[in-house]
């Protein structure tokens, strides 16, 4: 339940910061052509108000749910450790791949990415996973670099 309150609260906070930055841009007069600050200020105000409304709605629901079970109001929304690890793992892997492409080239780095990910997802046997990874990386290079002329140097 906490995530349902924390997420809109974070958005409300971001909206305040967004609106505050928008104050630094020339804004509202006709002489200034309804400047670049007008629209961001409107967006910040609307999103901020909606986010605060959502925080209030979810807080009320949370209070009610402590009093009585309300059936479908309470799906499991907490982040499991498994989800957190999967997300962080994927982010790290992509970042590492982009950095590796700069140093060791596209095919080895992409092969490593596909191999690590497929092994983590339970593809067995390992040798098959490794061979398939090399084929996938080589084919991607062949299509994008060879056929389309994309420089995969990152």
């Amino acid at each position, binding site marked *: 339940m906490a*995530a349902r309150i924390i*997420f*809109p609260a974070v*958005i409300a906070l971001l*909206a305040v910061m*967004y609106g505050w*930055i928008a104050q630094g*841009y*020339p804004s509202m007069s*006709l002489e200034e*052509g*309804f*400047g*670049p600050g*007008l*629209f*961001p200020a409107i*967006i*910040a105000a*609307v*999103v901020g108000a*909606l*986010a605060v409304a*959502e925080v209030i*709605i979810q807080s009320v629901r949370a209070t009610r749910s402590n009093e*009585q*079970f*309300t*059936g*479908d*109001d309470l799906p499991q*929304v907490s*982040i499991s450790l498994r*989800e957190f690890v*999967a*997300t962080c793992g*994927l*982010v790290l892997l*992509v*970042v590492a*791949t*982009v950095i590796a492409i700069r140093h060791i080239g596209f095919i080895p780095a*992409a092969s490593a*990415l596909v191999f690590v990910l*497929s092994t*983590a*997802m*339970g*593809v067995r046997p390992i040798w098959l996973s490794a061979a398939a*990874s090399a084929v*996938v*990386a080589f084919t*991607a290079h062949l299509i*994008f670099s060879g*056929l*389309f002329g*994309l*420089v*995969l140097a*990152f």
Partner: protein
Amino acid sequence: MEPLLNGLIQGLQPLTLLLTAVGVVLGLVIAAIPGLTVSLAVVLLLPFTFYLPPSPALGMLIGVFVGGMAGGAISAVLLNIPGNPASIITTRDGYPMAKKGRADHALGIAFLASILGGTFSLLVLCLIAPQIAKFALLFGAAEQAMLVLLGLTLVAGFSEGSMIRGLISAGLGLGIAMIGLDPITASARYTFDTVEMQQGISFIPVMIGMFALPVVIETMVRTRSQPLPPVIPISNALLGVRQAVASLKQLWPCIFRSSAIGTTIGAVPGTGSAIAAILSYQYAERLSKNRDIEFGKGNPEGIAAPEAANSAMTGGALIPMLILGIPGDPVTAVMLGALLIQGLTPGYTLFSDSAEIVYGLFASFGISLVLLTLIGLLGVPLFVKVIRIPARVLMPTIVLLCIIGSYALQNSVLDVWVMLAAGVLAYYMRRWDYPVLPLLLALILGKIFETQFRMSLIIALGDPLIFFKKPISMVFVLLLVAFLVWTIRREFLTSQDASWSSSESSSPLPSNAHEEKGK
């Protein structure tokens, strides 16, 4: 007639024809594999379109769309697992029919209904779209601004979760769209004094990340899930088609009605194919005269209705995307991206200046349906094998394509980071019931909305009543207010019902009630 013929010539060009066929096959295969969706297939093919001329690029995407809508039925019938959200309702009658040893017949009905539904929506598209496009000529800055606002609100209101969350999502998209140079004065906003950010956040990497990475993360999280149930074997696909054709006499009212529902629902931004399928199933259940077999136990109309509707949705969804630049669902959002990358702007000018491309798209749509008939029906034994492929085997390749695809747009590593951030954000937004389509749509339309909104105010010398003084703009505002009131009332009544039912029963709902609601 001449533009249609020119379009047909475009559609029959060897490269366009080949890529349309590739699209249909990929759509069928990807939608048939449980866990992979049509929007994922389309977004993964998007980077390839950067290097293609417009007609082959759009032909490939429409091929995926048509093939994907039909392909979802394969796993729905043979595995009881919907290949895409639109096929959820197909499982109710498709799987029971297959379990009775009539899998061939069930698949035959599903494909036939898909082909007829798609054909119906194509005809509507060809007849109506050019007429509405002429009407869109009357739109000035105020009308366009209010139209975009109405489109965003519709998408936010019809998306999953509450409308407030949909609107917050749209607001986030608009906020991100403001990053970069202001479209009127060219002042830098939210760029943090970096040159890279001055171009703004491109919606292509955001789209790739938001549609593809959540699927990867979900698959990673449930890697060690239960194995798939056994696939029900099929004996003779062609016999199934013959049986389906024979039963057409009884099914045609249902297919025609469902096609009309699918096309209409598809034309309303944000509604989606699942709603079209469910609504047409409900109508079929209510109005059916074929009650030899109960609905939910293998009634042929229970398969024909959702499949005709979800295929008919394709043509309907193209109407607002091509004419107004407002995509109705994720797939047309990607197609809009493909159009913009090709330097084409949706609207009436598209129909006048680039008629051969628009009618080429219509022709490719028709060709996709013909190819679906050939490939879909003859290739059923192959697709039966394909649905056994675990989605996780394909995930590493999908991640690699995401990296290349986001980088390929402008050879920028920043786009890869944007794709990654968008993917993680989309995963947790879905997890907490925030729809991602409004964000994406707002990001695509944000600059247009802002430009037209501010231009209207400048033209009206700062008078905000300009939006109420112009008749068409006024109609859009009234529709917007009516929709907001209707949605708020609907959500209020739903929450009242929920609290009433919970106070009636002190015990938790039975588990099957939750499952039913989920469907």
